[in-house]
């Protein structure tokens, strides 16, 4: 690859990073407004996400607990931006040809590990318990999600997300994975796993403000909390895009030049907004589970459904 191609590619990646952050912060504000409206409240303005992050980053004093604590800040942002770079967004393959679904799965783990180290270094027992819950949550929702992912890979006989998106957009919307019978079941399971990934209400066990004073974030303030909010914003976009790429054809409906790209981008944006709103509605309907309930929910009920889908796909494929 000559230098100019690399330059263009990295420019596109950086541009998409900014777009992702912008949309993420927008979603934070809009999300709180949707939840407020469900509570029959007025709710904050839609640009509240930007204001919160600006305020946090402009705090005068920032308390830190040593260099290991600062690792959380570096890992969280870089990890989630890296994951975003390896996802096809609205049909535009950023770097997703150089990596595949397993890489994205493990890239999503870097910020979680960064939090864990930062929270551990802060030495607060609340943080320790919060990180334990976060890791247990990760272990629990990964099982169904991984099984559905394997079902997809076996069906499309590839592990690279870009390839899956291509195969889903062969003849427009009808070839989306969600319309294939086993993947309807798999999509439902993956959506509940997405609820765990986004840490929305029934599964916001690690950051429970009442029980463990917001878990790992107990000692994070000022610029550290600002970075974590940026991470939360981008992670919403990344995880919803992952779901859309797997089951809703990555929003690709047209092929061709600039017009197609814009159309795909709009469809992608609408799709991730729908998925995010769905998870918010589930959020407002449920109280917070206990960690044991969440674990048994994912490893007993979700895992069985996912294995049914997997075997069904395996039977279809061989």
């Amino acid at each position, binding site marked *: 690859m000559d230098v100019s191609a690399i330059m263009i590619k990295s420019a596109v990646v950086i541009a998409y990073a900014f777009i992702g952050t912008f949309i993420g912060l927008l979603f934070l504000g809009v999300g709180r407004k949707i939840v407020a409206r469900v509570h029959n409240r007025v*709710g*904050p303005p839609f640009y509240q996400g930007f204001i919160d992050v*600006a305020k946090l980053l402009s705090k005068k*004093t920032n*308390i830190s607990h040593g260099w290991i604590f600062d690792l959380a800040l570096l890992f969280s942002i870089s990890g989630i931006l890296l994951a975003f770079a390896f996802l096809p967004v609205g049909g535009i393959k950023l770097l997703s040809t150089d990596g595949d679904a397993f890489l994205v799965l493990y890239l999503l783990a870097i910020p979680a590990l960064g939090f864990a180290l930062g929270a551990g270094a802060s030495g607060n027992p609340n943080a320790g318990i919060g990180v334990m819950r976060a890791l247990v949550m990760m272990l629990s929702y990964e099982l169904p999600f991984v099984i559905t992912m394997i079902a997809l890979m076996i069906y499309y006989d590839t592990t690279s997300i870009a390839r899956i998106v291509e195969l889903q957009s062969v003849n427009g919307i009808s070839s989306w994975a969600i319309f294939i019978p086993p993947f309807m079941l798999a999509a439902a399971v993956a959506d509940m796993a997405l609820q765990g990934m986004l840490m929305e209400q029934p599964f916001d066990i690690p950051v429970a403000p009442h029980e463990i004073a917001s878990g790992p974030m107990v000692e994070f303030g*000022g610029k550290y909390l600002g970075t974590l909010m940026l991470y939360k914003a981008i992670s919403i976009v990344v995880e919803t895009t992952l779901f859309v790429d797997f089951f809703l054809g990555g929003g690709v409906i047209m092929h061709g030049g600039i017009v197609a790209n814009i159309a795909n981008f709009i469809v992608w944006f609408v799709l991730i907004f729908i998925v995010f709103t769905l998870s918010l509605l589930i959020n407002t309907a449920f109280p917070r589970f206990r960690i044991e309930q969440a674990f048994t929910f994912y490893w007993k009920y979700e895992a069985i459904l996912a294995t049914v889908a997997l075997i069904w796909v395996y039977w279809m494929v061989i």
Partner: protein
Amino acid sequence: MRYEEWSGIARKASKRSLWMVHFCTGCGAIEMPPVMTSRYDMERFGIASMATPRQADVLLITGYLTVKTLKRVVQVYEQMQSPKYVIALGSCTMNGGMYWDSYNTIKRLDKYIPVDIYVAGCMPRPEGIMNAFLKLMKLIDEGKARGWERYKKYYERYKKNQEMAFNFVKKEEKEEEKNEGD
């Protein structure tokens, strides 16, 4: 950093996004739910309640403060990150309220930690609390909500006042200390 250098955007942002940690000691907590829920909805102004002082800008103290709880309030206040503001709800924090002659309640909170806004009433109604927040936002805008700077400037005097309250130092002992000092 002087207050003026604090740029306009940052001040606007911190005005529209006040995160509050709520230290409820006496009877004040019962007035907070209406403020948070749909009737008055403080989230309209970007105000949200946080779990730890590290994440908060506003310390909302409701109800009377005994000497023992004052120690904890000072610890929470010092763990907050500046710029930080204090809103004191209820007449008990102003002049001790109905505990004006009690032997261990704090009469005037301002002697121990800088208070930006007092809200009278026993307990003030949600409208009073909302007005307090709006007043605080206006003060931040005009750059007058300077409690945290005053605390930094007169740190020794605040600390001395706190020590005197913590050890119930009486008037005569104070004179002895003075003439020992001279």
